[in-house]
C-alpha cells in the first residue's frame, strides 16, 4: 500500500514538474509574430510560430541554447551543454537590427570578453536560419513567397510597373 502511494506521489510530482515549465513558457509563447524589419520595400511577415513549433518540435533549431532545450550544434555544445533557459528568447534579444552601425561595431570591439563576435544581425539571422530549412524541406524560398513587394520595392528593383521598357528586356521572374 505504502509503495503504491509513494509511486502515486512521485508520479504526480513528475507530471507537475514537466507541465509547469511548459505551461509558463506557453504563456509567453506567441502563436504568431509580426516580422516587420523590411517594411521599407516589403509587406510585413506574419510568422506562424505555432505552425513552426509543430513542424520542428525541437526549439533549439531556431533558438539555439536559449530555451533550455539541448542544442546539437557541436560548436554551441562546447560552452552551452548544460545552459539553462535565458530570460528572453526572442530573436531581437541578441540579433541586432543594425549589425554594422558604428555603435554596434564599437560595442562589439570594446567587449573583449564577448565570444559571439560573429553573430549575424537580425535580417541575416532570419534569412540564414529560415532559408536553410526552407530549401532543404521544401518551404518557400522566393523573396516574394514570404513577403510580397510593395510599390516602393518595385521602384527599388526597377521591376513591375517600374521595369525598364526596352525591347531586350528579359522576362521578370519576380522573385
Amino acid at each position: 500500500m505504502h509503495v503504491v502511494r509513494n509511486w502515486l506521489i512521485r508520479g504526480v510530482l513528475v507530471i507537475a514538474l514537466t507541465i509547469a515549465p511548459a505551461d509558463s513558457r506557453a504563456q509567453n509563447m506567441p502563436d504568431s509574430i509580426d516580422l516587420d524589419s523590411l517594411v521599407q520595400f516589403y509587406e510585413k511577415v506574419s510568422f506562424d510560430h505555432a505552425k513552426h513549433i509543430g513542424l520542428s518540435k525541437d526549439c533549439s533549431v531556431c533558438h539555439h541554447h536559449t530555451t533550455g532545450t539541448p542544442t546539437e550544434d557541436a560548436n554551441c555544445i562546447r560552452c552551452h551543454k548544460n545552459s539553462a533557459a535565458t530570460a528572453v528568447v526572442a530573436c531581437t534579444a541578441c540579433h541586432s537590427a543594425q549589425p554594422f552601425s558604428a555603435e554596434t561595431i564599437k560595442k562589439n570591439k570594446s567587449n573583449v570578453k564577448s565570444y559571439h563576435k560573429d553573430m549575424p544581425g537580425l535580417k541575416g539571422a532570419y534569412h540564414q536560419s529560415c532559408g536553410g530549412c526552407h530549401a532543404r524541406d521544401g518551404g518557400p524560398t522566393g523573396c516574394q513567397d514570404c513577403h510580397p513587394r510593395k510599390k516602393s520595392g518595385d521602384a527599388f528593383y526597377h521591376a513591375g510597373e517600374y521595369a525598364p521598357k526596352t525591347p531586350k528586356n528579359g522576362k521578370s521572374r519576380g522573385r
Partner: protein
Amino acid sequence: MKRRDFLKAWMICGASTTFGITRNAWGGASFEGYPERMGVLVDLTRCVGCRSCEAACNKEQQLPAPSAPFDDLSVFDRKRRPTEKAYTVINRYETTKAGGPVYRKIQCNHCNEPGCLSSCLVNAYTKTQEGAVIYNPKVCIGCRACMVACPFNIPGYSYSSAFNPLVKKCVFCYDTRLKNGKSPACVEICPQETLTFGHLNDLIKIGHERIREMPDKYIDHIYGEKEVGGTGWIYLSGVPFDKVGFDTTLGNEPIISNVKEFLGLIPMVLAIWPALFTGFHLLSTRNNNDPSKQGDSHSYREDAKP
C-alpha cells in the same frame, strides 16, 4: 599571354633598357596599411543570388537605370563584369557541390596597395584611411592605365563624352556612407548577411574562425588576405576559388612593385599611352562581335584576362 603580364614585361623591359633599373630596385618598402581601415568579408556560401546588392548600388551611386529589372535572373545566363553603369554584379556558377549553384559578387576589392593608384599618371586615386580606394574624376585624363594595372580588371570607363572619358568604379560608398561610419549600401541591403562589414583586421580573424568552426563547409583559404598584398574585400568559399571566377594565379606580391618601376617611364608613356589604349579599346570592341563572347557591351572581361 595575359594583358597584365604583357604590361609587366613591357614595363620591365622598357625600364631596364632605358634606365637600367633592376626589378627589385623599388620593391623594398612594404606598407602595413591604415590600422583602422574597414573591409568587407564576402561569404560565398551565404549568397542566394537575389541581386539586391546590385539594386542598392544602383540607387546609392545614382547609376543609370538597368536594362533589365534587378529581380530578373536571366542575367545569370552569362558572366558579367562591373561596368561604368553597374559597379557591382553577381555571377552564378554551377558547381558539383551539393546545395545548388554558387553566386559570386564582384566589385572593386579596395586593395591595400592598389595597382590602379600606383599606375595613375595624374594621381587621381586615393586610398583613404577608412580603406576605400577613391578617385577624383576631375583630374582623370582617361588614359586607362588603371584599367590595365588593376589585377581584378575593375575600373570601367564612361565613354559618354569622347573627349572626356572618365574612370568609374565602386568607391566603397565613401562619400555618402563610409566616411560617416556607415556600411556600404550593398552590405546594408543583403538579406543573407553574405557581406560582413567591419575592421579589416577583425574580419580576417572572423574568416579564419568560420573556417575553423566549419571545416567541411569552407575551403581553407581567405581570398584577398594575402593576394596582391591584401585587399579590403576578402572572400570565403565552399568551392575552390578558381571554380567561381577568381584569378588564383595573381600571387601575393602587390602590383605596386611592378608598377613602381614603370613610373620612371612616365615622360615616354605620356606620349604613347593614349594611342596604345585607343588601339586596345578598338581591339576589344572588335572581339565583342564574336557571339561566344557576347557581354555587356565593351566591358565584358573575365578576371583572368585573355
